[in-house]
Each structure stands twice: as structure tokens, then as C-alpha cells.
């Protein structure tokens, strides 16, 4: 299929952010995924963000019903969702309005909208449509009101279905992508179901493509990455699911909760082929209990949840720590507290992960900062949990969970994929908590081994595993469990500093905000600003050398997607100000006066926000 056939100007772009929004159920998400998939396969850098309503069937034609996809496509590797949208395709004016209300659109955004609403029977709809578009145009948007529904009807009598593929066709033309690649994806999506559906969607896609050829005099082109060798594209929850398989897990115990669930959906799809099972437990308490029982008995198991589920799992976390049963708990963060913003991103569970367990319960807390790390962190987490007989909490978030990114295809280590149990008799005198007095490390005795019978308990116990209420015994157990974190810390390196290792400002972050922060820092550095960035993967234990590293900057500031008091707000004083969560820990651990910026917009951090933070701070430093 040839590209644009009549005279068009092709504009070369480094990158563009494209959004497709519709009412929930109209297929904008599928359209976005299809377009993104074509871009990925053509070798573009990519990051996608899902636009998800919280309800399954919200009232149609409202801002709450907006559903879709935001795709950042570029000619270089892309690490985050980027700034403002350059082009939006809206199925109706309310879907468009929702994007205006979330401040997602660039002032000069190109808007493509179905013009059917301008002729709607309902005068209110006609009026809203006109006002919204006029307002956008006045602010500099370029608006294309196009007869999308009418055009679709020429091909498909029931235009309520398949409009989304017409739009994909238009986008393929607009971005000079291969239409055949789009057909291939349609075939992959629907081929198994029905050939008739494939044909209909292919026809619509082609119609959209041709319609766009006849409509747009200017189209765009985004070159592929320099090196597209050996790359994969997937979202963070898929990466966690595949990473769990790669880590050798054989059981995932879970209870459905957004945004963690899709990782379990993926696992449910293929885990059995790898000898594993997904156990959907009766609640999150049971889910962690099942994983604890399985690990204690020798089958590697993990549990996956989000905020409210993490809350339910606290008592079992204590038992895990006390009985020194290895466990990996993945928490895909969403907005909180309580039910909060269930489908949206936030980094608000850090302190809960660290400290919510009553009593002193030292545990490992680590956070992947990219989708690639979502994969690789799973084998790492398992290894730490088993070598240290520890609870490892992996903090992902909704941005990583649903975003899609290209990364180097991981290589598989078969040795992690077998699980042989040592069932040899236990030598006399071996203790179930044979703590090395230096390191606190010990070996678990798996059930089934002759002469090794012992009882795991949440009560304080001696190295022999016997219940004990004496103060010296309690002090020893606490010390040994805590010591393990120090030992782990001694194996860590000071995190890499992005930029110079001294300067005016160091921005510190953790988790999924790394991409946006580093991009912003790179852009500011290109302007000569003395700013650097650090991403902290190990939050418990914190890596060594932070105090020294921080000392080389005039100011250190944590930037996080969790709540902090604004120092200028009423009643807020330097003494009562509540800091962001990582900042709280960094301040207490390093005694450095780490400042913070924390907001809870429910959307991923944008590089331009970080740039404006940097600019303000640099202004103040001078």
C-alpha cells in the first residue's frame, strides 16, 4: 500500500504525543494499542499511558466516561509519558473536554473530532460541542471537524462498532506508517474469533487511511530508533508476570485489585504451561497466607496486590518477618488512602510498606523505575528473599503497570526455573534459626527432612525455634532480624548520579518517576543548569554513601508523586510540615535537610513539571 498519494508535505518530527479518547466501550483503548503496536514494530521509541474510567459502564457522553490511550512516539528511547499532547482524536466533545480538564493538551494541539455532534438533536450537545471547540481554537488549537461517523457508515452499516479502526487508519496515514502492519495486528486480534470481523476492521482501517490521504495536506514522520535490535515492548504488569516466571516462581496467590490485577491476568494465561498456578484467594489476607505457607513448605510463591490489599496483608507480613519465611510481595501502587484513585498513579504506599507492620519488622523494600526493571527486579527480589530469609516488598505503580515501553529483550537463565528440594536428613544439633552471630543469616529447614522437625511461630523464639519470653532472647531475635538488613546494605552501591556528582541541585526520586525526572534534568543541563538526578531503588535498606553524595550539592530535593504540605499553605510551619515519603526517610537517615516536592495529580509526572521545579529551585539558590 502506497503512502500519501497526492501532494502532501511530510514533516519530520523527533516525537509526538498522540491521544485517542472515546466513551468507555467505544474502543479507543484498542485503537491506541493498535496504533502503538504499529509504531513499536516500526522501531519507534514508545511510552503509552492508559486513560481509564473507574467504572465499567459510566454514563456515556460525559467526561467521566472518557477512556483511551496516550501514546508518546519518538525517534529515541522514551522513558516516560512526556508532557502535553500534540494530537488528540476525540470520539465526542465530552471525551475531549475531560482531556482539557486534566490539562493534558498542548495549546497548539491538533484536534480531530467527529462532527456528528454539531448536528445532534440535543441543542445542549450542539452548544457544548461548539463552545469547547471554539474555546480550543481561540487558544491556538488546530481543529479538524471531520465526518467520521458518516465515512464509516459507507463501509460498515453499524458504525457504532469499528469506528476505532477507521481512526487507526487515519493515524497510520498521518504518521506515514505501514497500513499492512495495521492489518496484521487486526488479524492477530480478531483472526481467532472470526474472519468476518477481521475483514470489516481491515476495510474500516483502509477507509480511514484513504480518507486521511484526501483530507490532510501535511503529514508527519518519526524515524525509528538507531538501534532496534533485540527489543521487546510490553507494559509493566506483563513484565512483572514474565519476570515472575523467569524468577522461577511456581505459585501466585492474589485477590483481584486494580491496578495489580492485570499481572495476575497475564500469569493466569500462561503460568500453567510453566508448571505454576495462580490461586485467586478469598481475600488478600488469605492470598499472603497461601504464599507464606507455600514458601515455608518449599514452593516459591509470591503475592501481588495494590494499596487496600497491602493494608490487609500487614499482620501476615509480621509473621513472615518473625518466622523468617522468604516472601516477595508486589504492590502496584494506586491513589490512596482508602479506595482513593483506584485506577491512577501515586507513590503513596512507601511508608506503609516500610512501617505499617506493628512491632519492629525489618523488611526489604525495592522499587523498579522502568518497565524493564519490572522484569528484572523479580529474580532479584526472589534471590534476596531466600538468601536473607526476608520479606521483600516490590513497589511498582499504575504508571508502570499500564504504560508500555521498549527495552532490551531479557535473556533467560534456565537454572532459576527448577526447584529441587533438599530432603536429606538433618544433622543432629542443627537449629531452625541457626543465626550467624555476625550476619543474622541462617538456613531454613524444609519440612519433610528426617530429624529436622521444628515449629515456625510468630511468637518470640530461640534459635531452636522454641517459644521464649525472656528479654535476652527477644533482644537477640530482634537484633538478628535487623542485622540482615545491614548485611544486605553492605552489598549495595551508592546509586549512580545522572549528571555531575556535584552542583547546585540534586533531584532525588524513586520508582516510575525516573524517566520524567532524568529527561527534565537532561534538558536543564543542556541549558547549563547545574542540576543532577538520583533514583533510589533500594529504599530499605537505603544504599550507602547518600549523605556524602548529597553533601556535594547546594540543595537536595526529593520529587515524588505523594502528598506533601506546601510550605506556603496556612498553618504549615517548618516544624509541622509533612514531607513526601522518601524525603521523610532520607531526612531521618542522613540528617541532610532534604526538601521535597510532592503532588498527587493521579497522572504521571511530566518532565516539564520537573523542569519548572528545577527552575524555581535554581532561582532560589542564586
Amino acid at each position, binding site marked *: 500500500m502506497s503512502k500519501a498519494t497526492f501532494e502532501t508535505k511530510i514533516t519530520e518530527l523527533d516525537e509526538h504525543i498522540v491521544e485517542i479518547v472515546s466513551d468507555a466501550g467505544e474502543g479507543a483503548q484498542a485503537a491506541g494499542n493498535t496504533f502503538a503496536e504499529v509504531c513499536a*514494530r516500526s522501531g519507534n521509541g514508545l511510552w503509552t499511558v492508559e486513560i481509564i474510567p473507574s467504572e465499567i459502564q459510566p454514563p456515556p457522553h460525559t467526561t467521566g466516561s472518557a477512556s483511551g490511550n496516550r501514546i508518546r512516539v519518538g525517534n529515541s528511547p522514551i522513558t516516560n509519558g512526556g508532557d502535553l499532547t500534540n494530537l488528540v482524536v476525540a470520539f465526542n466533545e465530552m471525551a475531549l473536554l475531560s482531556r482539557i480538564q486534566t490539562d493534558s493538551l498542548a495549546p497548539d494541539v491538533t484536534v480531530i473530532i467527529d462532527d456528528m455532534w454539531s448536528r445532534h438533536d440535543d441543542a445542549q450537545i450542539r452548544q457544548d460541542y461548539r463552545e469547547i471547540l471554539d474555546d480550543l481554537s481561540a487558544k491556538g488549537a488546530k481543529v479538524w471537524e471531520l465526518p467520521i461517523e458518516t465515512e464509516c457508515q459507507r463501509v460498515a452499516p453499524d458504525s457504532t462498532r469499528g469506528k476505532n479502526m477507521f481512526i487507526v487508519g487515519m493515524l497510520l496515514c498521518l504518521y506515514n506508517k505501514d497500513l499492512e502492519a495495521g492489518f496484521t495486528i487486526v488479524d492477530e486480534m480478531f483472526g481467532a474469533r472470526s474472519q468476518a470481523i477481521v475483514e470489516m476492521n481491515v476495510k474500516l482501517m483502509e477507509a480511514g487511511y484513504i480518507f486521511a490521504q484526501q483530507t490532510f495536506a501535511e503529514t508527519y514522520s518519526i524515524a525509528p530508533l538507531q538501534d532496534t535490535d533485540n527489543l521487546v515492548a510490553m507494559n509493566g504488569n506483563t513484565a512483572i508476570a514474565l519476570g515472575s516466571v523467569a524468577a522461577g516462581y511456581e505459585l501466585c496467590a492474589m485477590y483481584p485489585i486494580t491496578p495489580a490485577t492485570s499481572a495476575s491476568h497475564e500469569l493466569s494465561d500462561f503460568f*500453567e504451561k510453566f508448571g505454576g498456578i495462580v490461586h485467586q484467594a478469598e481475600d488478600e489476607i488469605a492470598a499472603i497466607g497461601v504464599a*507464606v505457607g507455600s514458601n*515455608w513448605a518449599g514452593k516459591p510463591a509470591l503475592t501481588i496486590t495494590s494499596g487496600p490489599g497491602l493494608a490487609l496483608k500487614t*499482620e501476615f507480613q509480621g509473621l513472615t518477618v518473625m518466622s523468617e519465611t522468604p516472601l516477595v510481595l508486589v504492590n502496584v501502587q494506586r491513589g490512596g488512602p482508602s479506595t482513593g484513585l483506584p485506577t491512577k498513579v501515586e507513590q503513596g504506599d512507601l511508608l506503609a510498606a516500610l512501617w505499617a507492620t506493628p512491632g519492629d519488622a525489618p523488611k526489604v523494600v525495592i522499587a523498579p523505575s522502568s518497565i524493564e526493571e519490572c522484569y528484572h527486579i523479580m529474580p532479584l527480589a526472589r534471590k534476596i528473599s531466600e538468601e536473607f530469609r526476608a520479606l521483600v516488598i516490590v513497589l511498582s505503580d499504575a504508571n508502570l503497570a499500564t504504560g508500555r515501553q521498549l527495552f532490551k529483550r531479557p535473556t533467560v537463565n*534456565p537454572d532459576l526455573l527448577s526447584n529441587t528440594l533438599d530432603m536429606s536428613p538433618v544433622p543432629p544439633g542443627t537449629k531452625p534459626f541457626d543465626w550467624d552471630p555476625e550476619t543474622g543469616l541462617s538456613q531454613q529447614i524444609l519440612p519433610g527432612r528426617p530429624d529436622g522437625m521444628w515449629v515456625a511461630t510468630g511468637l518470640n523464639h530461640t534459635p531452636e525455634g522454641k*517459644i521464649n519470653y525472656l528479654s535476652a532472647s527477644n533482644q537477640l531475635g530482634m537484633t538478628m532480624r535487623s542485622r540482615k538488613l545491614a548485611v544486605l546494605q553492605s552489598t549495595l552501591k551508592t546509586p549512580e548520579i545522572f549528571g555531575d556528582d556535584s552542583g547546585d541541585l540534586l533531584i532525588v526520586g524513586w520508582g516510575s518517576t525516573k524517566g520524567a525526572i532524568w529527561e527534565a534534568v537532561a534538558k536543564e543541563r543542556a541549558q547549563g543548569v547545574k542540576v543532577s538526578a538520583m533514583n533510589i531503588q533500594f529504599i530499605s535498606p537505603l544504599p550507602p554513601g547518600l549523605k556524602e553524595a548529597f553533601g556535594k550539592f547546594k540543595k537536595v530535593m526529593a520529587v515524588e508523586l505523594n502528598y506533601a504540605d506546601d510550605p506556603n499553605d496556612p498553618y504549615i510551619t517548618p516544624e509541622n510540615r509533612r514531607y513526601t515519603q522518601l524525603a521523610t526517610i532520607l531526612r531521618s537517615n542522613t540528617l541532610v535537610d532534604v526538601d521535597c516536592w510532592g503532588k498527587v495529580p493521579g497522572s504521571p509526572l511530566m518532565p516539564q513539571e520537573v523542569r519548572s521545579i528545577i527552575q524555581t529551585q535554581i532561582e532560589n539558590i542564586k
Partner: protein
Amino acid sequence: MSLDIDDYIAKEVHACEYTLDDYTTEPARWCKGCGAHGALGAVQRMLRENNEAPENVITVSGIGCSSRFPHYLKTYGFHTLHGRALPVSVGVSLARPEMKLLTVMGDGDCFSIGGNHWLHTLRYNINATVIILDNEIYALTKKQASPTSRQGTMSNTSPRGSYLEPLNPLSIVLGVTNLSFVAQTASWLPGHMQATLDRAWKHKGLAFVRILQRCPVFMPDAFSGASAEFPAQFLEHCSGITPDKGILRNAPTVAHDPSDINAAQKIAANAHKDLEPLGLLYLNTEVPTYNEVRYSHVQQSDKFAKAELLNQYLDSYAIGNPNEEG
């Protein structure tokens, strides 16, 4: 293959290789006269009769007086959280189907805080013997009303008598789908208790055994003080449990076919007003275990085959390649 006479003697003649001491860690620290002592003894005798190697048994418990059980029984044990013995048991059972599993809980532990797990684990039908030591009171926390406390029970949280009719655990259990074994016995009937535990142990699937348990400290009057006056009836059937009546020698015996769920529900529903049933209420040997259900779909392969498969999955996400699996 020639028959080695020593092997033969070891296997057939000395059917019990183990002594009770082999199943004992330390003297149990329950109060004098506590029904848990009797239950522990019955479990130990049952294990010896079944010639179970102690290392092949896993005992999981919750929290309560009753849940100290694993500490006194020489097997592998996990003394978990209040109410949560069953989820841990599910994990253990999925992980090590070749091991024999015993789960011990109290009435508050299982029927109150662990209620959700109770219902759902019955439905999973994991392969385990699940015993509830029901003393009709919260004992470890020093006498608060339990869901099974009879109406009017004086306790520290109901000093003028407990307000509600008790929960009927047998009726609840008999309403759960996938149920495979339900029996009731009493801690002061050693013969009956051991026979019941033995049947439960040999059952494939979840054997739910409620043991009416004396707590002479906080509930001396429960179960008519565990005297011969306790209003009970023994269930009898050729597929049931032999009514070894012990002190309840005057209690009536009624015929009950344990495959009849409706009859079982009727007996259970009348238990409180009428006579407490002792024996096998319900048995269905056809229900598949959770392991059977789940692992029949699971492919077993070696690490290289798994690596190969994982490589295929990763390839399906490669850019430039058609995404078949994604």
C-alpha cells in the same frame, strides 16, 4: 524381586515403627483437665497407628490455647496467626501434596476471625485433616464469648449473659459446596475421638472434625461438665465411625447414612435443641481435592523446556515480530 525377610518384618509385622515418644516434643502446657491434652494424645496414637513418619506430617495452627498444638506434637509445624491457619494450610498443601497435613484451630479462631477462610477452604477441599477444638469460649484471652457460646454464657464481655443464639458450625459447614467429610466428636471420649481422627486422616480431601473440648478453667459447665448427662446421640452406619461411647454409654444410637446430605443437614440443624450428634455426619469420597483440580491443568517440564517456552513468550513481544501471545 526376592522378598527380603527383614523388609517384610519391618513392613508387615512391626506395623508400628514409631512410639508415642516419637511424636512428643515436651510436656504440653495446657491446664490440668484441659480437653486439648486428650486431643493431642488421640492424634499421637492415631499417627502411630497409621505408622506416619513424623517428618512427613505438617501441623498448622492459628492462635489460641488450642493452637499451641504443634509445639507439643513432634512434626513440622507452623503456628500462624489468629484465624489464618487455613490459608497457610492451603499454601502448604499446594506446595507439598506428598506430605500429610493436620490443621488445628479453636472456635473463635476458625468460626469468627477466620470465618471467611473456613468457608472457602472447605470449598477448595484441600487434602487435610482440619480439627476445631471447640470449647465454646475464648480461652487464651481469658473468657470472652465465642460464636459458639450458648445464649446466656457469662463471660468477661457478657457479664450478664451472652445475648445471641450460638452459631451452628455443623449447619454452616453442611451448606458448603464441594464438602467431602464432616464429623463431630468430644475430647472426653478418647476411643471415639481416635476413631474419628483415624477416619479423617485416611480421607482424601478436607476432613472437618469438630471436637467438643472441655475447658475446665473458663467453661467447667459446658457440655454438662463433660459428664454422662451430656445430651448426645451417636450416628451409626456401615460406612460411619464405630460408636465407642465411653462415658456416654447411655446415649442413644441412631442410624445415619453419611452420604445423605439432607439427613445430615437435618441432624445438624437440630443439634442444639435436640441431641449433639457424634460420629460421621457427611462423607463424599468423590470430590476431587484442590490439588487434583488445579494440577490436572498444569504442565510439568524441565528447566530447559521452560526456558525455551519463556523465550518464545519474550519473542512474542519483540518489535518487528508479530505479537502472537500478547
